[in-house]
């Protein structure tokens, strides 16, 4: 591992100051960054340990919404009574993430800053990857693309985003609060991630020297009746092939409002806006009618050689998740 300086900060202001130094990176849970450093994916000159900023670990809720501090641990948020009852998709997504040990370490902010699990990006011996080395190409396109994106991929990159939490937050219209040297700003979760372009290595709209401070989720009927469904090759401790977060507002069996985001299929949590519109006033128990609403959002799907199954799997997952959310009413 490369040399680095290590320092601890106790306030957000000190963290922001420290981050303005060249090649500085924040470390909190460490569950992603240490692996990047071991693999040579990241080589920070300075590590800023922010675990001492107690304010950033708070989870608070009121009638208007939920605020999750960036340093809250996944396990603590998953067990939070208000999260479990008023935002169940968030609790379910967190409990489906990683392992109990990692959930005790990993933070909410760090979870959103995860990078793809594409095996070519993570390769111990470096192979072409535009995320790993800009301009080097994409080994996945000519290799095994089983886990790759079927929606939103580009000629630069076909990797998917791995976070379960981000999918639930996308469906529930969450906002990411960040702070940098020029002050705080907020970014809707659905636009927090960038689609791969000429700067594929830049995956989020977080600028250099900025830090996520909190996530806010508005309270709603849709959030209260939300559900996260994760499909993977093992029953536990595995990333999603396809996952879906849905929120529902149902009146007398008919859908008044639906909110849907997919994971495992795109470079970012993928909202199904056309489906959400088409689902209004559809009878939830009419499976054929529900399935038909998915047509437009999948019209532009671009499956590769080994991941064509994801299109059908995603459609079925949405239908099932909607049924599950409806049953939870």
């Amino acid at each position, binding site marked *: 591992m490369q040399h680095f300086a290590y320092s601890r900060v106790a306030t957000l202001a000190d963290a922001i100051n420290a981050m303005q130094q060249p090649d500085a990176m924040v470390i909190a849970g*460490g569950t992603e960054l240490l692996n990047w450093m071991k693999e040579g994916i990241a080589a920070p000159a300075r*590590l800023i*340990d922010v675990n001492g900023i107690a304010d950033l670990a708070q989870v608070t809720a009121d009638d208007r919404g939920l605020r999750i501090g960036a340093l809250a641990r996944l396990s603590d948020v998953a067990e939070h009574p208000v999260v479990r009852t008023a935002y169940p998709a968030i609790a379910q997504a967190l409990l489906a993430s990683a*392992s*109990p*040990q*990692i959930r005790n*370490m990993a933070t909410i902010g760090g979870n959103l800053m995860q990078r793809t699990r594409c095996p070519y990006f993570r390769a111990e011996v470096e192979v072409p990857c535009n995320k790993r080395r800009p301009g080097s190409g994409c080994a996945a396109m000519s290799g095994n693309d089983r886990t790759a994106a079927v929606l939103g991929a580009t000629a630069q990159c076909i990797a998917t985003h791995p976070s379960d939490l981000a999918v639930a937050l996308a469906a529930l219209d969450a906002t990411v609060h960040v702070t940098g040297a020029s002050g705080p700003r907020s970014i809707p979760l659905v636009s927090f991630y960038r689609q791969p372009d000429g700067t594929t290595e830049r995956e989020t709209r977080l600028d250099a020297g900025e830090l996520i401070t909190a996530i806010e989720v508005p309270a709603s009927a849709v959030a209260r009746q939300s559900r996260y469904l994760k499909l993977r090759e093992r029953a536990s401790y595995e990333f999603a092939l396809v996952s879906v977060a849905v929120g529902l507002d149902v009146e007398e069996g008919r859908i008044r409002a639906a909110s849907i985001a997919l994971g495992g299929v795109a470079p970012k949590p993928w909202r199904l806006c056309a489906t959400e519109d088409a689902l209004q006033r559809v009878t939830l128990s009419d499976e054929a009618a529900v399935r038909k609403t998915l047509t437009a959002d999948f019209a532009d799907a671009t499956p590769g050689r080994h991941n064509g199954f994801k299109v059908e799997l995603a459609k079925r997952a949405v239908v099932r998740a909607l049924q599950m959310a409806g049953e939870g009413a």
Partner: protein
Amino acid sequence: MRTSAPSQPGGGIAADDTVAISLHINGELRHVLTDRRATLLDTLRERLALTGTKKGCDRGECGACTVHIDGRRVLACLALAVMAEGREVITIEGVTPADGLHPVQASFIEHDALQCGYCTPGQVMSAIACIREGRATSDDEIREFMSGNLCRCSAYPQIVAAVRAAAAGA
């Protein structure tokens, strides 16, 4: 199993990366010279001779290095030793009484929940926490909440039985 050296080849530490830290481990304050870049796992094993904590994947995938920090189960391979200063670390050595076994250890032996034994310290540390968290109330729940600990000998049925029995006696 990864065998890469934690610091410099030959086990030495380059002078500019040496740090003197104090770690609360198993109820004792231990002063240790380690490498700033060293994980807690490598520091436990290479600097403190606490080799009960095992190094499996070194990437947070196998659970062999599970220890408790401030009462919670975590992975020692994904923590820098310098980040553990000021916190309470408990390893497998710290849960084993001088004159016997922890009930979870005894249950693993009773239920034949190991073959090669390499994953066992991590399994035991995880199981102690799993029971304490109240997540060992059914076989399905034990399987889910022990899923962060892999056993390549595949003693899973026996591990589930051992955890279930230990939870019943807890």
